[in-house]
């Protein structure tokens, strides 16, 4: 999976490209947490426009980042999920804690 970070004031947008599974989640976790550790970021936008695949490991990964951001009273938003990605997001009930647009 490829990651692209776009910073705009207190908002960090992370664009995910490729497959988000257990393998890529393990690789990306450290990179992302390093990038968002600066407490000025109070909103993380996860852009899934170019995400081809996600499984339940990907859901665990998103919830993990939510927990990091929640500690500083920040929010996470998911944008541009395709129909097939949306299917597992909806099934997980993640929409109850994270805004999906």
């Amino acid at each position: 999976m490829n990651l692209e970070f776009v910073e705009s004031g207190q908002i960090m947008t992370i664009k995910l490209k490729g497959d988000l599974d257990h393998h890529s989640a393990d690789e990306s976790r450290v990179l992302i947490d390093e990038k968002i550790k600066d407490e000025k970021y109070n909103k993380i936008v996860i852009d899934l426009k170019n995400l081809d695949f996600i499984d339940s490991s990907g859901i665990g990964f998103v919830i993990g980042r939510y927990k990091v951001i929640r500690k500083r009273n920040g929010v996470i938003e998911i944008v541009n999920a395709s129909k097939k990605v949306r299917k597992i997001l909806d099934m997980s009930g993640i929409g109850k804690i994270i805004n999906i647009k």
Partner: protein
Amino acid sequence: MQNNYVFIKIPSYSTNESFARAAVAAFCSSLNPTIEEISDIKTAVSEAVTNAIIHGYEDEVGEIEIQCRIKGQMVEIIIEDFGCGIVNVEKAKEPLYTTKPELERSGMGFAVMETFMDELIVLSEKDVGTKVIMRKTINSRK
């Protein structure tokens, strides 16, 4: 293409997760599945293989066997590991139940397999291994 089959044996490296789901998806393509059906199969395979890697073998490297069989319009996928096994399969299948929350596991693996496939059978024995059998009928595109 009646009764076609394939047998794949891979070591439990996480890099093989994407190979396993792509290989099974490619094998199923002869049934002319929809994009959604292929996506469902890939997701279910990914869940079963990830379980074998994380839970079956934990930090060890073992072998995972994947068998795919086409019977008419139905595809049967068997994913087997020879790791630690699951003591309580019913508990493991409960949505959101996980033995490894510290690894950011969502506890949704079996629920996803059950939802995305038509049938899920989990056979497991402690210290012997786990065998996941999944079936799905493909409604060929016209």
